[in-house]
């Protein structure tokens, strides 16, 4: 009986996904190491160890840094992964993220009379505006069958330019070409977390992100709504046949995805970490990193949590690598190669299957 249980664990879908994600990471890191060797072989070992150690190299403070960086990308990853489950590609996480970030900062700067509820109002407003940014592509997809990838990309530009415009008009710090600083009441409380992690920027945000992970997990796996959403993602025709209102589900799925990204934007900037939106014509990176996180985490909420932490980990490691004389871009290349291998994880899965088959044969 016991043996049967362990066997079903080793052969379970989830475990296979986990193993192939780990193998993808290992393969990506190997490619990264080769890159380091090529660009500067003398410091390669040192640089590589910096990236592997990530935040751990600088103790609790480093870990706190990792948690802070992980928070927004866990949420954008969750956003993309959630939409994936419904069969939608939410490439608009960046726009939703930026819109949420702007509204949060705006409220943080302007609505000063809210006292203890200030940061909560900021977060809620960011969730709302993110949801609206998701709603538009959702409606267009559901009722007019407009491809969500195109509308989402357009929403990214709208989000970026509208934000830049509105910052200039309302909360512009002309000297530094960025947003003004928010009132300290608007910052998400540290709740002792920042202090625990060596006075880092980590705060309640990571807890909120983890709660979001749990909520999304429960919605997807335990509710009738999640059942409908996943069915819609796996076979839209069958959901129609079963009388499921797939139009409504598509819209809701995009709304929830948008809300998650918007929350991510607020959590990054309402942190008292000295982060500001720079007024530049660049689409927010966190949205695209979210796609990577969702891919690496196989769109599974728990997977997304760990993928987000891992990417934050090597991002911090990449920062440290600069001490060895490597440009931070190398880190981006390594991250990219990990994702690249992640996309090949299907191949890796097949390979594992083959090995297992061969082993089974050997047993008999």
């Amino acid at each position, binding site marked *: 009986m016991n043996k049967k249980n362990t066997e079903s664990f080793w052969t379970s879908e989830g475990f296979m996904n986990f193993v192939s994600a780990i193998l993808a990471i290992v393969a990506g890191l190997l490619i990264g190491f080769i890159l380091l060797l090529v660009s500067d072989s003398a410091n390669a070992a040192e640089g590589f160890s910096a990236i592997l150690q990530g935040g751990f190299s600088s103790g609790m403070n480093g870990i706190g840094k990792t948690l802070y960086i992980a928070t927004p990308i866990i949420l954008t990853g969750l956003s993309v992964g959630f939409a994936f489950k419904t069969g939608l590609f939410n490439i608009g996480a960046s726009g939703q993220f930026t819109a949420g970030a702007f509204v949060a900062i705006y409220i943080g700067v302007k609505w000063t009379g809210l006292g203890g509820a200030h940061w909560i109002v900021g977060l809620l407003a960011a969730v709302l505006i993110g949801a609206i940014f998701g709603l538009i592509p959702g409606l267009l997809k559901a009722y007019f069958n407009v491809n969500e990838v195109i509308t989402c990309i357009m929403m990214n530009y709208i989000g970026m330019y509208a934000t830049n415009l509105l910052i200039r008009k309302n909360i512009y710090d002309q000297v530094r070409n960025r947003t003004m600083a928010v009132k300290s009441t608007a910052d998400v409380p540290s709740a002792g977390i920042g202090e625990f992690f060596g006075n880092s920027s980590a705060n309640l945000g990571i807890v909120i992100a983890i709660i979001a992970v749990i909520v999304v997990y429960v919605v997807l796996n*335990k*509710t*009738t*709504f999640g*059942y409908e959403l*996943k*069915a819609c993602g*796996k*076979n839209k*025709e*069958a*959901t*129609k*046949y*079963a*009388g*499921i*209102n797939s139009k409504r589900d598509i819209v809701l799925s995009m709304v929830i995805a948008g809300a998650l990204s918007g929350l991510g934007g607020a959590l990054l900037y309402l942190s008292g970490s000295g982060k500001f939106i720079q007024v530049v014509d660049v689409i927010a990176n966190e949205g695209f990193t979210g796609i990577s996180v969702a891919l690496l985490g196989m769109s599974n909420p728990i997977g997304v949590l760990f993928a987000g932490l891992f990417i934050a980990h090597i991002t911090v490691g990449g920062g440290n690598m600069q001490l060895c004389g490597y440009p931070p871009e190398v880190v981006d290349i390594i991250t990219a190669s990990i994702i690249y291998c992640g996309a090949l994880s299907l191949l890796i899965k097949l390979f594992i299957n083959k090995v297992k*088959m061969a082993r*089974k044969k050997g047993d008999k």
Partner: protein
Amino acid sequence: MEYVIEMNHITKKFGEFKANDDITLQVKKGEIHALLGENGAGKSTLMSVLFGLYQPEEGNIRIKGKEVKINSPIDANNLGIGMVHQHFKLVHNFTVLESIVLGHETTKGGVLKMEQARKKVLELSDKYDFKINPDAYVSDITVGMQQRVEILKMLYCDNEILIFDEPTAVLTPQEIDELMKIMKRLVEEGKSIIFITHKLNEIKQVADRCSVLRKGKYIGTINVAEATKEEMSEMMVGRKVNFVVEKSPFKPGEAVLEVKNMTMKGKHGTKNVVNDVSLTVHKGEILCVAGIDGNGQTDLVYGLTGLEPIDEGQIILNGKDITKDSIRKRSLAGMVHIPEDRHKHGLVLDYTLEENLVLQSYFKKQFQKHGFIRFGEVRKYANRLIEEFDIRSSKGPTSMARGMSGGNQQKAIIARELDRDPELVVAVQPVRGLDVGAIEYIHKQLVKQRDEGKAVLLISLELDEVMNVSDRIVVMYEGELVADVKPEEVTVQELGLYMAGTKKQDMHKGGKDGE
């Protein structure tokens, strides 16, 4: 012995699973050799081995007495083996001639030389009495003609050994007769034919010998003339099969479904795909809509079940107008739908069996509380259906639907739909692609519903099914109903004429009974 094909002791494994287990197939020159077996018996695997798509672990292949190694379909072609596929592989905007020479064009300096080809094609057509027009476009000719083009294509390449993969599935009875004649003519000319089918009538009619496979194993080869249908089906299934569907006497009750003047416009053309169709299904009645594939039956069902809106007309279920109701509403009002395409509509293939079994009822009180799924209840329910309907799968309720066999997938759909205590069952080709055992089972279930006083609307392309199961038959041709008959008052030949559109009843005067 002058065997043209000998496949000796072929074993082909996929992992642990033996798809072919020591199978021997010996085909004599100039015979029609039927290959009979249920779905999953290993017929396709065996043919794939013959075509070099799979390499067997054990066994050897001899063609005309010489041992050969077939590594790819090209090798097979060079050995003179050709196949007419179930789904034709023709280019629709090519002419017949172009289709035939495709892949074997005669050229001179890079320029097509069609004259020789035309001569050869016409000769072949005359020789076998194909009556084809080489300049007609493939899209304009009938399905039966398209099949002849496929056959000509094989003859054009001088293939000696022809494999027909369930060739009659798409044909009318008249076309089937003609195909049988052609097959006989081909063997007279010295060709050899392997005829894959699970229709016993056709084997009786045309085949000389028949090899039977069951669950990957070779059961035996018999002379068709010496065996009865019952014996053959027993070899195939491994038990006695009842061909006659047993039904209690027909006692129709009040009308359950009334369709009045339903019209649906086509998506592209101006022609109506469903044109002014009126029909009534009563309690305790199985009404069968017969017809050749593509005459509007699919659209009729889409309109009935709400998958597509209808343009004109009225649908009444138990006295209530449901013309504008949503799919969910119709389903809750007691209309269940066994869909034509079980992979497209019937199942979420990447959901487990239990998840699929609650696809139509997951939102009911029984299975959810405040929006949370009651997994224990779902499991209990799934286990009950699995037992009651004998749905077989590797891991029971947690098996992925994708990994289940076609017959068991269909059983799962039927279990889910019939267990909802329906008023009206709309079953579209419920036994398509299934073997005799499963067909018998599914027909029994439909008849059980009827005997319990439910109304059943059966859409079928198989005349055996139409004649055996139904209480009343309407025939659909080009979107219209052209006949309304009782199975005991009509012959298969007559039905064939209705289906082909050569005979019509005046539907607006008489012919509608039970009203």
